[in-house]
């Protein structure tokens, strides 16, 4: 089959790889109908996440049709149309039973490596480093799904791929970020990063009843998409984030802050940005935590910081004293995708949410290698790329 394969920094190739096979009884194999490039795939593209090996198939936002099922898998049958949560979950361990699916204790087959890095293992992930199991990803024609009797979302026929695909990651990630904010009707929610997750978090905050949502980003096209859902927008390249937030909140700051940027933040403060870039280039820190620093300083005392943005390792110059003394609550984690599936499908089915708004580019899988730089450079007004294996090249 054909797949997008990681070979090193900024080196993604469209290659022929062996077809996946059923390896365990609970497995299933799908023929991929749609997959997407996620913002967190760019961390792999930039080689900022440790644990990638040349030859790894990337991609963790995937859906398709079941074409083969393992002998112990009673939950799926050939022909089922499913979306695949990016977190691989057993559904049986203590964490899964609590709904903490992203820290499933069973599915990471490189648990020792994860334990050495994070202190404990986290769930296996598709196409996202050997720290999380080294499972082949879903930017491919076919995908083997381990623990597929639990790791799947059955998609109702009336929901098209363009709406269902994002149930795999960015939609529940944005939703979880907003739910973690414990939004109250008089809250101001401020979201850093108007990329796909930030956009989903914004819609989620609205549906959960936030009085006012503020969105921060440098890119005008992203801000226009945020404004479409009622956000007040701030471009840090044009105005002071601090002054505007104070103006919007009577000088008190937003009660709830969401970091939808993560480890590759750009700071509008040049010395800070150069400092982080230099330390990152010299491998003296893995992540650039500008947004985290700013959020801690901007958030109203007693507020909540919700962090869906991905961080990979060690951060520098984080004002932890401010975090502690202001009594801020931090909620973070990879998304417990299946915890949120039912309500999100319900919102889509109700016609209250249409996540397809975020798609700006649809291309054949074959064009994946050229779509990565397009997405990376934010050129061509690119916000979200969907790849389709069966689509003909233009």
């Amino acid at each position, binding site marked *: 089959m054909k797949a997008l394969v990681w*070979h*090193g*920094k*900024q*080196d*993604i*190739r*469209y*290659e022929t790889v062996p077809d996946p096979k059923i390896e365990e009884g609970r497995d299933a194999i799908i023929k991929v109908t749609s997959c997407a490039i996620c913002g967190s795939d760019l961390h792999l*593209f930039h080689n900022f996440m440790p644990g990638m090996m*040349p030859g790894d198939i990337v991609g963790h936002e995937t859906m398709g049709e079941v074409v083969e099922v393992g002998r112990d898998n009673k939950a799926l049958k050939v022909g089922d149309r499913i979306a695949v949560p990016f977190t691989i979950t057993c559904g049986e361990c203590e964490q899964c*039973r*609590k*709904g*903490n699916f992203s820290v499933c204790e069973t599915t990471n087959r490189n648990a020792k490596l994860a334990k050495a890095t994070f202190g404990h293992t986290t769930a296996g992930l598709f196409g996202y480093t050997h720290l999380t199991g080294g499972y082949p990803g879903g930017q491919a024609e076919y995908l083997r799904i381990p623990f597929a009797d639990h790791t799947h979302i059955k998609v109702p026929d009336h929901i098209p791929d363009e709406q269902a695909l994002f149930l795999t990651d960015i939609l529940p990630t944005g939703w979880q970020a907003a*739910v*973690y904010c*414990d939004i109250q*009707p008089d809250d101001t929610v401020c979201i850093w990063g108007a990329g796909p997750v930030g*956009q989903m978090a914004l*819609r989620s905050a*609205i*549906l*959960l*009843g*936030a009085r006012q949502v503020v969105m921060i980003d440098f*890119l*005008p*096209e992203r801000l*226009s*998409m945020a*404004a*479409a*859902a*009622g956000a007040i927008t701030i471009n840090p390249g044009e105005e002071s984030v601090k002054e505007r937030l104070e103006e919007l909140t009577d000088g008190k700051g937003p009660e709830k802050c969401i970091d939808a940027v993560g480890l590759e933040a750009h700071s509008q403060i040049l010395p800070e940005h150069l400092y982080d*870039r230099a330390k990152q*280039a010299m491998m003296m820190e893995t992540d650039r935590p500008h947004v985290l620093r700013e959020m801690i300083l901007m958030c109203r005392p007693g507020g909540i910081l919700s962090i869906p943005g991905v961080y990979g390792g060690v951060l520098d110059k984080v004002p932890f004293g401010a975090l502690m003394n202001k009594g801020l609550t931090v*909620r973070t984690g990879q998304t417990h995708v299946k*915890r949120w599936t039912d*309500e999100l499908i319900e*919102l889509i089915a*109700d016609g*209250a*949410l*249409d*996540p397809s*708004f*975020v798609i*700006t580019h649809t291309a054949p899988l074959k064009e994946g*290698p*050229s779509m*990565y*730089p397009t*997405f*990376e*450079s934010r*050129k*061509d*007004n690119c*916000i979200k790329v969907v790849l389709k294996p069966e689509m003909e090249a233009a």
Partner: protein
Amino acid sequence: MAFKYGSNSSLSGADALVRGIGLFSIGLGVAELVAPGKIARTFGLEGKENLLRAFGAREIASGIGTLSVDPQPALWSRVAGDVMDMATLALGAKDGQGEAKRNALLGIGAVAGIAALDAFAATLMAKRGGDRPPPADYSDRSGLPLGLEKSRGYYRQKQTAGPAVADRDARDDQRHSGAIDGKEAQASEPTRTDAADPVQTETDIGQAPLSAGVALS
């Protein structure tokens, strides 16, 4: 690892050029750091060994930047560095004798060529990922088909309007926070009255870490 450039790879010919420049820069920087005396003699720059060492450090820094995910600023900094190199070599051409003077003149020509290459590569990197068109207007992409006003609080209202649903979700909250099964969850399972209270909705995931009556110290 072997890099592959071309239509099947996200790496382009421009990336190959930039990586070559980055590696050359680091190599030249190391040479200037470890053998400044030899370089000084070659180009008639005796007495300027410390300056050459500083240039070496600059070359290594710009090389690292050139090999980073965003090489364009480092490439432009290399162009500025090339101008400094040419000015320094001009001193060698002015003061040097014989072969050293000739080498310095050749060096100026070579650095001028490298400067042109650096500038060309920086220009190519500006085009990485395609041209930048004017910002698109996505203001018709709300993703909220009911409209903004009906959408605001839609989920909260839906939950408070349906006691059965709210009951279920409140139990889920218990499950997520660890109080699953057993008498604890049973005892605190919300009544219909609880469900109608807008404060007790699904959005309140994660129970308050301490109940109101618990003092910290």
